[in-house]
């Protein structure tokens, strides 16, 4: 199968992306975002994990939780490029909440071909998240430290995203068959959420412990489902990072146009100008690679793994670079809490390492492109 020239990004996708941009800009522009998530600057404060829970019904109403769910399971069955467009805007707004986690969960569930009610719950508006990493931070689901026996879960999953915001958990657990997927409410009996205190103010992260918690097994081969879904997860995360990177670029450009030193706008100075150009070219490379990967999910599944690794590897390096330059080019003001750039700086740091950093993805690409080393 080959990809359409335009990435398959047609009018419907453009409409969704545009409406998402407007939704985020209207309901949570960056000043209100800052007031919401950065209210307490104390460096030793616990993560508040603030979000606009009141907006969730509207997002469900717009169909956003159902985008990636097959029509057969009550979803909209939209292509990955459409979801990528939404996530790009999500990142541009540094939007807090369980939408990304819920979409990610829906991809794993869809890959598991479970026929269970889980997908329908999400399509109907339940938020959800994935629990699979161990304490050492391995992103390989097969390393999960949760075990299942007779439908009851034990153990702890770490680096769970949005555990306090998501209503449902999809857990990778070691069971008799290998790795199984289990579905339960995040407030079910035997489930304890211990929030992490994290750098990123727009996200929530935590450890979820299970003590004989009753959960519903879904699908057959959990490992296969995760492997099939990971390219989508990486690609959508890359989309969030590209959106955030574009915000960092535009905001810093505006500052460089407005701020004067030595009777010149900052942007006159090549030291600033050329850094910003380099940010732009990296954002653009990452953006092109992410739509390429998303399009492969839709049209060229045999290359989806490779192209998704490229998208996340590129986005990780871009995010690190764009973040550093956004603070540096803002000078002193960029180093203050009141300037919004730190929100994106911290979100990008979080995204950079989430589900594998640049080096991790490149190592896997090397095995694909150069062969594994004996």
């Amino acid at each position: 199968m080959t990809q359409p020239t335009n990435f398959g990004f047609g009018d419907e996708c453009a409409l969704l992306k545009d409406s998402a941009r407007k939704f985020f800009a209207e309901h949570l522009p960056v000043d209100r975002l800052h007031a919401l998530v950065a209210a307490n600057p104390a460096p030793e404060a616990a993560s508040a994990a603030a979000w606009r829970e009141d907006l969730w019904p509207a997002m469900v109403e717009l169909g956003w939780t159902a985008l990636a769910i097959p029509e057969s399971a009550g979803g909209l069955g939209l292509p990955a490029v459409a979801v990528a467009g939404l996530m790009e805007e999500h990142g541009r707004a540094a939007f807090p909440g369980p939408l990304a986690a819920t979409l990610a969960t829906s991809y794993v569930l869809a890959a598991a071909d479970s026929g269970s009610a889980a997908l329908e719950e999400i399509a109907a508006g339940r938020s959800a998240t994935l629990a699979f990493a161990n304490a050492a931070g391995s992103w390989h689901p097969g390393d999960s430290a949760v075990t299942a026996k007779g439908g009851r879960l034990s153990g702890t999953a770490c680096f769970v995203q949005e555990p306090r915001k998501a209503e449902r958990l999809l857990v990778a657990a070691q069971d008799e068959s290998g790795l199984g997927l289990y579905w339960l409410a995040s407030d079910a009996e035997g489930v304890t959420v211990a929030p992490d205190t994290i750098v990123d103010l727009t996200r929530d992260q935590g450890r979820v412990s299970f003590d004989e918690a009753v959960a519903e097994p879904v699908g057959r081969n959990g490992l296969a489902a995760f492997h099939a879904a990971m390219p989508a997860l990486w690609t959508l995360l890359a989309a969030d990072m590209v959106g955030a990177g574009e915000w960092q670029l535009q905001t810093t450009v505006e500052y460089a146009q407005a701020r004067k030193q030595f009777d010149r706008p900052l942007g006159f100075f090549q030291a600033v100008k050329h850094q910003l150009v380099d940010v732009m070219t990296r954002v653009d490379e990452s953006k092109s690679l992410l739509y390429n990967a998303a399009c492969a999910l839709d049209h060229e599944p045999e290359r989806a793994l490779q192209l998704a690794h490229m998208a996340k590897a590129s986005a990780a390096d871009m995010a690190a670079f764009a973040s550093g330059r956004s603070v540096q080019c803002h000078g002193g003001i960029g180093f203050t809490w009141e300037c919004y750039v730190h929100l994106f700086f911290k979100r990008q740091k979080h995204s950079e390492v989430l589900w594998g950093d640049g080096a991790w993805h490149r190592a896997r690409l090397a095995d694909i492109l150069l062969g594994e080393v004996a």
Partner: protein
Amino acid sequence: MSESERKDTPEQAEFRAYCRDWLRDNHPGESPVRLPQSPIEIMTEPQLHWLQAWQKAAYDAGLVGCDYPEAVGGGGRKDCQRVANEEMLAARTPFLPNVIGLGMAAPTLFYHAQEPLKERLLPRLLSGEDIWCQGFSEPGAGSDLASVQTFAERRGDRWVINGHKVWTSLAHFAEWMILLLRTDKSHKYDGLSYFVVPIRSALGKGVTVRPLIKITGETGFNEVIFEDLEVDDSYRLDELGKGWQVAMTTLLHERGGGELVTPRSGGLTSKTSFSPTARNLRTLAQETPRGNGTAADDPLLRDRIVRQFIREEALQQNQRRSRVPALQDHPMRLQLQYKLLISELAQDTARLGVEVAGPASTLYLADEHAPTGGQWPLAYMNSYGMTIAAGTSEIQRNILGERVLGLAKSK
């Protein structure tokens, strides 16, 4: 079905099938002489003639210049050059030698010359029979192009030209030159005018072409000295004093930003000449012994080789995305990046190739033990031609910062 075919118009689809058939039967095969890495490094007549024969054949078959009107020697087609280029790329044909003519002179003539001049010059340009060169840079006018000092003095309907141009690729083979010069010394920009000048016929009669030698030892570009060369006013393009605007058309097309698609063949994947690509890097690494295995087993090199694969893919996808308005914010943003990114990518890939080759990277073209025939250090050195010529990387970053990001001008 290839990626591009999905969007072909009926005319394009039919033309694509025609190109494919023709290329299957008419690929020129391997060159009998070693070819340089790009057209601007053509050094010898045998190289030139072999490549000119290929361009003429492709032109006669309608694959080169197909979007130009029939009246000026073109194919009269619509949006078909891209199709021909894709098929030539896929067929791994050699590059077209008249690269300055096709990429810069032809669109400039098309937009700024009078009809009779177009009808006279374009057919032999498109066919490659007349090689063209570009007289822009001077010893004192590099990045600051508008400070050119070559001067034309009016004498009735004639102009008398004196001056000194440098870095003129292909001038030693060229019949014609596009020439940016000064007709008024009192205005920097508005004192510029733009001519086409027959230089081959004037050699020794007002025109001297001297080869410049590059750091690689190759020739390919030249100094051109004008001493009282007389040309007719009919060789002027557009109005007097509009030279800078005409030059912008030339540069726009050079940077890949023009409407008219430049005929291209071969390039990165051509089998007839070497380019510093990620694939070639991989091959080199897999063939280079290192410790008990090969350089392709080294985790540091693996990481860096993969980075080059990613950048190459990104550049291809940038080009693809540049044609999808819904995925762009600024119409020129991706096109204006191309020259900067491709030249720095090639430089970094070539440099990595030199590192991968290890101690044997010290060996040059004539050494029988040189990996890949010494092409890696050659490509690395030549890459500085790419990051310097046609607007250095520094100038490219100015252009991007100013035109796309709207930052204050640095000059």
